[in-house]
């Protein structure tokens, strides 16, 4: 070998494969203002749509008069439910098996509901015109409190289904009831509670909030009357699902619908569902024959498209007096708003709420969820979370604290005592999941050591004494959370969306000169798929990541896939990539054997090449092989070097982590300062540590926002409070704490590369960690639970209730 021959290490480094901190390819365009988001797209003759929205939360519509609007120069059309009825589009199916009004049909059910769609030459004219549409309302009694939804005299919200006793998820017990969902062993749980030494019961309200990506939802529809083809650009986390739904609704064949999700400015669950704006843009384009763009403003985004959470979780634990948990019982009252538009896999009306036994070996459990209608916006999306896992983890991680308090134990000791042990994996949980792998004890211990947990508790004890003596007005809170997520939906045996199984896909084409393109069924919204997917392929087939293009979001070119949410991209699409790459590698091996005139079994893979075992100088690189694959394949072999894989995962993956937060709270102002936040994540195999760290920072910041102030609230009249950045808490760089990150690696045994997914873990684990810190600060005064969000006003009120201001 001469000096120019790269060493094995050099070849490996050149690949920029899995495990390296590859810099993102996306950044090259984003840092130069060359991203291409929906609102950046401009088509000739394009019109703008805007909504007339309801000022009432519940009212009958007596009449809509659009004549003044239509008389305004530049206004092209005004659509109402009447127009949509002609096309059978006044209502549309939701992902949860319910029907939702596209435009108000006879009545409105929540404030800011879409009533009419104005189409005009430019956005200013459209905005002027919506002011000119006159809507006459007759107010109806408003139902805001979900606890009153099933009262005998509650107002009837959904007249369309008021007499239906069967819903998409079984029997309905009341006209405002959506479903009752039960899992687990009720008699067994009752029995364990009856026998228990100690029990606790507490209702944790996980308040309504919103994913709020910085880019709002938008769509641009262009219908070509001559070809009968529809092109739809939009903020879609799941473009193929949008195409299927658009086809079912419009009756245009799927082959003639081209859905394109260009760059997306964050999603966090907001951009999974199908919204009236998308449907109206499509209809308006069909009606006018011109392209129609619809872009939400922030107020519309926060108050109409996809809230998250709103779970009232009555949580009970039973335990022996030495702290062994013997049973768990949970009842959830789920406020779904006016339509059940949750974006869960169809068979899971409460998502994966049954992961609520958490990281603990709880022998028996029972969970009931009642979903109800109220006069609030629909949604119930998985905000940076895999289908209600955030809620589930909040319930168990708060309950553990309450139980520890009652037992007089340190909550960390209680956790350690009840952890699922390493040797118990794969572990069957009482509520039906099979956890793939974990080493909880090691992760917890590493976290404790990293923060110096014992010293922190000692410091806290000293501070409490000082507080009691009146020497300080500050309380110290130590928050711990240990979470297990369930992500990667999902196996077709139990996961589908409207009947479409939740597989995902990848197609890889290696070009003759040795570069490649990969097309995916997922869609990045900032996660950096273009960078990380190429790293997986680079490692698998030995082509440098820089020579691999990753393309997503165009349903014409990408294989069918279910999109990106619920941390499913790495567990599902990541696996599809590895499987497609391995098909290519298998063919490449046959070609190499032919070229080197040896048997395939005599070859071994080495970074970027097949070499003859024991004779490393006899080799063919993937690049050599690619050329031959096209131009001189072995006799009888089809030319070409490409593969497609549709991956139906055998199981979910179960990332986990240990988080610890230290807070100082001023009882007189209610201001809580996060002194320290340490996050240890185990997401299995790590593809790009830089990107993982970025995901953790972002997820923790969103967790901080939700726990400490962010909410969508309503007054008694159903007016949505705070649906703008004036009130909706988004932390700036000043409030956001500094994040310390750490990790352990426990690969998933059933995933081809062992990766589990990470994007949502920090949110799932972060929220209970902050909330536990606030609650811990006041626990020594006998307080068991303070409701989120923990803004200064609420903390101050908690202090007031505890008599700290006398």
């Amino acid at each position, binding site marked *: 070998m001469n000096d120019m021959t790269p060493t094995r290490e050099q070849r490996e480094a050149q690949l920029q494969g899995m495990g390296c901190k590859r810099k993102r390819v996306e950044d090259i365009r984003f840092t130069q203002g060359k991203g291409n988001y929906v609102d950046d797209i401009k088509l000739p003759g394009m019109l703008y749509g805007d909504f007339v929205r309801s000022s009432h939360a519940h009212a009958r519509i007596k009449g809509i008069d659009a004549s003044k609007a239509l008389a305004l120069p530049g206004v092209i059309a005004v659509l109402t439910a009447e127009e949509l009825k002609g096309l059978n589009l006044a209502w549309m199916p939701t992902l949860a098996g319910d029907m939702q009004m596209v435009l108000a049909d006879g009545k409105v059910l929540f404030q800011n509901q879409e009533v009419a769609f104005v189409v005009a030459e430019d956005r200013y004219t459209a905005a002027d015109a919506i002011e000119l549409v006159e809507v006459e309302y007759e107010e109806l009694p408003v139902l805001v409190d979900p606890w009153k939804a099933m009262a005998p005299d509650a107002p009837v919200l959904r007249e369309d289904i008021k007499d239906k006793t069967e819903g998409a998820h079984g029997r309905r017990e009341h006209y405002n009831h959506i479903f009752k969902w039960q899992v687990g062993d009720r008699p067994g749980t009752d029995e364990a509670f009856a026998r228990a030494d100690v029990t606790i019961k507490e209702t944790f309200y996980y308040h309504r909030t919103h994913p709020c990506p910085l880019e709002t939802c938008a769509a641009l529809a262009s219908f070509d009357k001559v070809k009968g083809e529809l092109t739809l650009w939009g903020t879609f986390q799941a473009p193929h699902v949008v195409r299927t739904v658009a086809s079912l609704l419009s009756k245009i064949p799927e082959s003639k619908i081209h859905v394109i999700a260009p760059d997306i400015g964050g999603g966090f669950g907001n951009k999974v569902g199908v919204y009236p704006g998308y449907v109206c843009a499509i209809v308006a384009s069909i009606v006018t024959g011109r392209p129609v763009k619809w872009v939400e403003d922030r107020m519309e985004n926060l108050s109409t498209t996809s809230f998250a959470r709103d779970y009232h979780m009555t949580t009970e634990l039973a335990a022996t007096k030495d702290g062994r948990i013997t049973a768990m019982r949970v009842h959830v009252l789920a406020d779904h708003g006016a339509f059940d538009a949750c974006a869960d896999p169809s068979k899971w009306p409460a998502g994966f709420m049954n992961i609520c036994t958490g990281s603990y070996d709880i022998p028996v459990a029972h969970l009931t969820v009642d979903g109800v209608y109220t006069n609030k916006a629909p949604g119930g999306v998985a905000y940076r979370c895999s289908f209600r896992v955030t809620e589930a983890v909040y319930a168990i991680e708060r309950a553990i604290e309450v139980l520890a308090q009652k037992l007089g134990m340190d909550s960390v000791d209680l956790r350690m005592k009840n952890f699922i042990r390493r040797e118990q994996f794969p572990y069957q949980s009482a509520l039906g999941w099979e956890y793939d792998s974990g080493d909880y004890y090691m992760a917890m211990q590493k976290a404790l050591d990293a923060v110096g947990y014992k010293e922190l508790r000692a410091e806290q004890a000293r501070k409490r004494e000082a507080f009691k003596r009146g020497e300080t007005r500050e309380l110290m809170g130590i928050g711990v959370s240990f979470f297990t997520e369930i992500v990667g939906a999902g196996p077709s045996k139990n996961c589908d969306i409207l009947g479409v199984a939740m597989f995902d896909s990848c197609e890889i084409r290696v070009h003759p000169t040795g570069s490649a393109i990969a097309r995916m069924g997922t869609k990045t919204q900032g996660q950096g798929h273009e960078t990380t997917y190429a790293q997986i392929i680079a490692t698998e087939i030995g082509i440098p990541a820089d020579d691999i293009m990753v393309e997503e979001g165009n349903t014409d070119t990408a294989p069918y896939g279910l999109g990106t949410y619920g941390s499913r991209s790495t567990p599902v699409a990541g696996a599809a990539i590895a499987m497609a790459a391995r098909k290519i590698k298998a063919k490449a091996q046959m070609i190499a054997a032919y070229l080197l005139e040896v048997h395939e079994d005599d070859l071994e893979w080495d970074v970027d090449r097949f070499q003859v075992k024991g004779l490393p100088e006899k080799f063919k690189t993937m690049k050599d092989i690619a050329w031959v694959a096209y131009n001189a394949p072995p006799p009888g072999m089809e030319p070409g070097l490409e593969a497609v894989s549709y991956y139906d995962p055998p199981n979910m993956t179960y990332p986990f982590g240990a988080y610890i937060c230290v807070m100082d709270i001023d009882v007189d102002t209610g201001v809580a300062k996060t002194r320290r936040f340490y996050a240890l994540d185990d997401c299995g195999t790590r593809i790009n540590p830089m990107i993982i760290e970025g995901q953790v*920072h972002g997820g923790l910041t969103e967790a901080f926002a939700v726990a400490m102030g962010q909410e969508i609230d309503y007054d008694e009249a159903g007016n949505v409070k705070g649906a703008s950045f004036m009130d909706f808490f988004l932390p*700036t760089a000043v409030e956001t704490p500094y994040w310390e990150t750490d990790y352990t690696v426990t690969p998933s045994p059933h995933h081809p590369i062992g990766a589990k997914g990470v994007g949502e873990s920090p949110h799932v684990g972060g929220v209970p960690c902050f909330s536990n810190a606030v609650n811990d600060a006041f626990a020594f005064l006998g307080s068991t639970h303070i409701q989120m969000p923990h803004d200064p006003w609420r903390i101050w009120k908690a202090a007031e209730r505890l008599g700290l201001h006398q």
Partner: protein
Amino acid sequence: MSTIEQVPVTVTVNGKKYQRFVDPRMLLIHFIREELNLTGAHIGCDTSHCGACTVEMNGMSVKSCTMFAVQADGASITTIEGMAAPDGTLHALQEGFRMMHGLQCGYCTPGMIMRAHVLLKENPDPTEEEIRSGIAGNLCRCTGYQNIVKAIQYAAAKLNGRTVQEAAE
């Protein structure tokens, strides 16, 4: 198709002079994005909070959603599209954001970089705290700001001729 009388506006953007007739009520952000087709600056809110629309006007940071285009008459504006050198070399901030993983979805990035540009002119070597308060008018939903701070520190170091350190994992 407004019936409002159009008024003339002359601005220099990224060194190029533009003359247009616009509605007096047209926002500067719409003018930049739709009249000049410079779509790097974004819109993220209706209340002047997010800073996604931040551009540099006469050396100051402005939220271009909070001004009318006519108020910019005669002004010199720099947008993200004007940050790289004519030969395509990226500005230290653009490089820093990529090297330190200061962006994810990229939606806030043009505004962040433009804000940071003015910040570094006013304070060439800011502390972490100064950076955090200096960008408090710009929201990011993805990064948690920590790597944005590092990206700005990277740029400051580079602009001050110090060796730059790559992101620790």
